[in-house]
Every structure is written in structure tokens, then in C-alpha cells.
């Protein structure tokens, strides 16, 4: 292992409830936990559905499509995710849950609330992949 002085992204721990989520990322699949009783997705992954306290959660594939709900351009992070500047965003998936992620593939200042996005994958050191998002439509003129 070389002495790597470039900043490394903080790699997420794996909690038991999210094992299936992370396992799917190894194959670049985005899956979400659904409560079969309430018929709604639950985010973040947890052991029970918050609404009914019933443990019957079922993992289903997500389309990977969503929209930028909020975004900020980070210039000087304490623990960089990418080479700054980059975008941290809340992405609202079409399934109705909101994830935090990075939006890549467009100059950071041009990412805007309302942009349609599609999941992409960045390798982590243990074979998992992290879901990031790329714009799926051209920029809106400002």
C-alpha cells in the first residue's frame, strides 16, 4: 500500500438491517426496503417499519431514477468525498424516499434543485459500491 496522501472518502459501516442494500450494490443494483403491510418504502433501512412496528420488510429493486431535492457545492470539506468542489445533494427517488448522495458528471455550479438524475456507482475498498447520481437530462437554461 503506497503512502496515499490524497483525501479518501469516509466509507460507510454496514448495519445488519442494511446488509441486503450493500450486498446489492456489489452488482450495481439499487434496492429499497418495503413494508409489505403498509406498502411503502422505508428509508433509511431499519429492522422494522416505523409505521406499523412490523418486521415484515421486503427488498425490492428501485429504478435508480430521481430528482435533486436540495444541493450544495462543497469547496473545503473536512472529510472529502471527492476532489472538491463537488455537490452534496438530497435526491428524491421516484419511489418516494430521499437519499443523501453526490451528483457528478456536471460542473458543480450547474447542478440545480429539480434536475432529474440517475444512479451511478463508485467502488468502495471492500467491493461494495456507493450510489452516486448523474444528471439524466440536459441542464435547464438559467
Amino acid at each position, binding site marked *: 500500500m503506497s503512502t496515499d496522501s490524497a483525501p479518501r472518502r469516509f466509507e460507510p459501516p454496514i448495519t445488519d438491517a442494511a446488509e441486503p442494500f450493500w450486498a446489492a450494490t456489489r452488482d450495481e443494483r439499487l434496492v429499497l426496503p418495503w413494508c409489505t403491510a403498509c406498502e411503502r418504502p422505508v428509508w433509511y433501512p431499519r429492522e422494522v417499519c416505523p409505521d406499523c412496528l412490523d418486521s415484515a420488510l421486503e427488498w425490492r429493486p428501485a429504478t435508480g431514477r430521481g430528482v435533486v431535492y*436540495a444541493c450544495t457545492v462543497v469547496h473545503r470539506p473536512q472529510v472529502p468525498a471527492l476532489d472538491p468542489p463537488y455537490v452534496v445533494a438530497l435526491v428524491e427517488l421516484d419511489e418516494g424516499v430521499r437519499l443523501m448522495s453526490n451528483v457528478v458528471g456536471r460542473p458543480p455550479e450547474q447542478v440545480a434543485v429539480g434536475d432529474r438524475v440517475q444512479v451511478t456507482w463508485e467502488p468502495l475498498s*471492500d467491493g461494495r459500491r456507493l450510489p452516486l447520481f448523474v444528471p439524466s437530462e440536459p441542464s435547464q437554461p438559467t
Partner: protein
Amino acid sequence: MTSLRGAAAIVGVADAASPTGELDLHGRALEAAMIREALDDAGLTLADVDGVCHAQSSVGLAEYLGIHPRFTDSTNTGGSSFEIHAEHAAAAIAAGLCDVVVSVYAATPRSDRRRRHAASQGPSVRRPNLGPNPMAEWEMPYGMRTPMGPYALAASRHMAVYGTTSEQLAQIAVSTRTWASLNPRARYRDPITVDDVLASPMQSSPLHLLDCCLVTDGAGAFVMTSAERARDLRRPPVYVLGAGTSHDHLMISQMPDLTTTPGVVSAARAFRMAGVKPGDVDVLMGYDSFTITALLHLEDLGFCPKGEGGAFVDDGKLGPGGSLPMNTNGGGLSYTHPGMYGMFLIVEAVRQLRSECGDRQVDGAEIAVAHGSGMVLSVMSTLVLGTEGARS
């Protein structure tokens, strides 16, 4: 003074233990199982619960359960925490602050040893044993700049939905700095302009340095007693006329709507208890960790309609001589901000109502609001304070 005797009752209980000394569940799953069993015992559901007690984080538990309590207690005194939760809950119920309170405990020290050993033999990803930390799994990897990252996200949403501008946010910093110029202990007292704010280095768009709170040392304390006892003491009493609390998330990615804080709920309850409206408020101490925070309070406390905070502050009404004095000590933006700033809201509100503020005194102040914001726009608690004249 009314006795607490017989005012509240425990209506559901659950516990889990095994002759093996180990349980199958652990962590939040075990907590959720206990809560469900106790609620079933009571014939109630999670929808009935409006108060939550937890010896580590009532806010984290509530986020996990997806509930929005109005009574919250994270008292941790070790083993006696739960009796104290019961005492606090009984008092809160008796006072009408909440109706149904849940307290929960789960610990698995025996099976944790086995799980830790198994984890150390397996893949290199370390699994947390220190309690639930969804922020580490779902937010930290994406590299927000702290502490302003979550607030920057909120500002971006407010701008996109309501057209709020950086100039309008900057005006809040300008008005607050004007108050600070009247406070000899403020960190920064030189007047600033909107242009100065916009020219200050961007921290996390759209928040510039001067949109953000200070990092300073600071300290404070308050003493409270009964209204009866207060009248015999040294200073004019400042009465608690109303109080209300609400939280609806812990981390920003779980905030239901980034343009609206639980201050809508906490303030409504506090104002109703106090019998006041926003127009009755002489001094507003609203937690200003960032300019966006202050703007959201103005909307959520009902000083202006949702979405109109930008236009509302444009004319400088928050500053000295304005119609809504806000953060008269110079705020977290210009006076001091050691990290948990809410104490200073209370101290300044009290001093204003005692007419002790000298150059920054708001004449004839009788009603003040101290509105605290905790975590990331997550936990709001509103105090309505008043003089003897306001109390009658």
C-alpha cells in the same frame, strides 16, 4: 402547588430476558420490539405516542420510529434513568405537555461480545458497537462541510421553492451585526453590508462565511423557581408563560420538508399556552446558527407566511429601531456561538424583560420569545417569557 400524586399512570409494560443470558434481537430492533409489546399491553399504538424518553438519544429513537413527539427526554443517569423518565413524564402529563409517553431500554452486553468477536474475524468493514449511527452509514460518506452543510441544503431548497435570495439572507446578518455593535462583549461589532456578506468566502453554497455562526467560547446558566418564590427575590421575575417542543428528525436527510421546521408545532403550542400572538412579541430571540435558520423561525413562528421570510427581512425590521427586534445580543452570528447556543437566547430575553440591556434595550419590552433549535433544524423548543405586567 398541585401534587403529582395520582395524576399519571403506567398502562403498558414489557421486558425481555432469557435463562441463557442472551436475546436474539439487539439494538433498535430490540427497542422497537419492547415498545410494540408495551403499547400492545396498553391497547395503544405508536400513533398515540407524543412523548419519548431514552437514555442516549430520544431524538434518534423518534427518528427511527418516525414519530414527532412534543415531550422529549434524554436524561441519562445510568441505572436510575428510567425512574427519572417516569418522574418527568408524570409531571409533563400532569401539566398537559403531552398525553402518552414511552420510555425504552435495551442492552445486550453478553451477545455483543460474541458479535464483536465474529466481526473481527470477518470482512474488514468494522461494524459499530457503540449504538445506532445512521449518520455514519447514510450521510458521512458524501462529504458535507460541517456544521453548515445541512443548513446549506435547507437554504438551497428554500431558494428553489420560494425564490429566497442570498441578498435576503445577508440582510439578516446585517441586522444582527447592528445589534452586536451595541453589545460590548460581542465578537464582531463593525457594521457590515449585504455586499460584505456576499463577498465573504463561500462555505457551502449558498452559505457564505458571514451567513454562518461564530466559533467562540461561551457559557451561561439560568435559575428558575416558582412564581410565588420569585416575587420575594432580587430581580423582577421573568415568567414562563408558554413552552412547546417538537422534533421530527435527527439528521438532515430525514427531515420531512427542508423548508419547514418543527418550530411550527413548538411555537403554536407555546403561544397558545401563553395566550399570545406573534404581534404581541416585543423581542424575538431566535436561534441563529445560520441566516437561513433565523429566516425559517420567522416563518414557522408565524411572523410572516411560509415562503415570505426573505421579503419580510428585506427592510431591516429585525435591527435596532425596527418593528421586530430579533437577536438583540448580536446572535450566534456576531455575539458568541460555542456550539449549543440556546442558553444565550434565554439570558438575553430575560435581560430585555428586566430592562437591563442598556444601549440595546428594547423600550417597554414585556413579552419575549426564546426559540431554540437543536441538531440540524431537528428539535425546536419555544419559550414565551413575560414580565409581571404580561402575566396578569
